[in-house]
């Protein structure tokens, strides 16, 4: 599984999202490659304009807000299945 976190840098929610994703992966013992995308061109290529944004296997899961940890877990589990 490939997880991308789209972030324009700096913002607190973007860092928090990365941290939550890593926690969920650890807890569920899921193997995934986590990539932080900060290049604006690549962020826009996903068709989103608000960050932080979570992309799993090239599918936009959520944009512009920090989801609850459980929501992230559901995203990851449903892609993993």
């Amino acid at each position, binding site marked *: 599984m490939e997880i991308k976190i789209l972030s*324009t*840098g*700096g*913002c607190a929610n*973007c860092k928090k999202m990365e941290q939550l994703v890593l926690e969920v992966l650890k807890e569920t013992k899921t193997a995934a490659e986590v990539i932080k995308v900060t290049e*604006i*061109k690549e*962020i*826009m*290529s*996903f*068709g*989103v*304009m*608000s*960050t932080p944004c979570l992309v799993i296997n090239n599918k*936009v899961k*959520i*944009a*512009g*807000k*920090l989801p*609850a940890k459980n929501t992230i877990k559901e995203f990851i589990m449903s892609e993993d299945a």
Partner: protein
Amino acid sequence: MWQAFVDYLVYQVMGLSPQSHLGSALDFFIYDTVKIFLMLAVIIFLVSIIRSFFPPERTRKILSGKREVKVDTGDGTGAVTVETESSLREFLGNVLAALLGIVTPFCSCSAVPVFIGFVESGVPLGVTFSFLISSPMVNEVALIMLWGMFGWKIAAIYISTGVIVAIIGGIIIGRLKLEHQVEDYVYNIKMGENELVKLTWKERVDYAWGYVQDILKKVWLYVLIGIAIGGFMHGYAPADFLVRYAGKDNLFAVPLAVAIGVPLYSNAAGIIPIVNVLMEKGMALGTVLAFMMAVTALSLPEMIILRKVLKPKLIGIFIGIMTVTIIFVGYLFNAIMA
């Protein structure tokens, strides 16, 4: 009712005199803190529910003016969906952008992708600026604080003036034909397609509640400090303290208020309680409005972020237009209220 309870608490239970500095300062502090926090929680929740219907991606679609129209091909194969290429006209587009700026959730960290997204979808530069001006200026925290401390009339004046400033600022920038003052790479970015996810009501409520917590966590300290300073001045400073310096007869008050407001960016939450007392002590309404607008709309960090997409000249023009318009608003209201 709440005022009566606080009066009872401070003047009866604690035994302080309403005429004493300490009594009147403490009464003011307790009354305002609880009122403002309640208003923040309730109103931000409602505003967030409305906002969940207007993600920036949808606003972009509306402003681009492209509509999907079903056209009958006429050869019997039925209708096909085509995107029309009508970009919104000047005035109408600016009005719409300024209004959408109020309801679209926007944080300065998304300013760059939002700007590029708008430009990419053919939203005219001036219309994009109307959005960029109104979105931070008419922000919910400033609004609630104004409503809670100054009453709904001043809050309404602030919103309408803010929207008008955004419309005018956008139209001027549009007329100046500054498209070449946007960083060149912006025009080379192609935005991907992404279906807007339809949210359930539960998701909207979760989002709104999360947002309330976010904002409260961010502003509670500023609000407390602001109200504490306000309470102190309310209790201790003489009533006509500022009439000479910030009253409507001092012509320098407006530009000075704007100059002081610029470095206080994004601290609307803490500043409004103080401004409320400043007005009580003699600051003129126009000066207050100009000050508030400088605090919310002329923020240095946002200019630094926008520098990534705008060339220095356009940043300069933007700041110049905003400064002049805000100062004009200040003088105008001081003249009207005289």
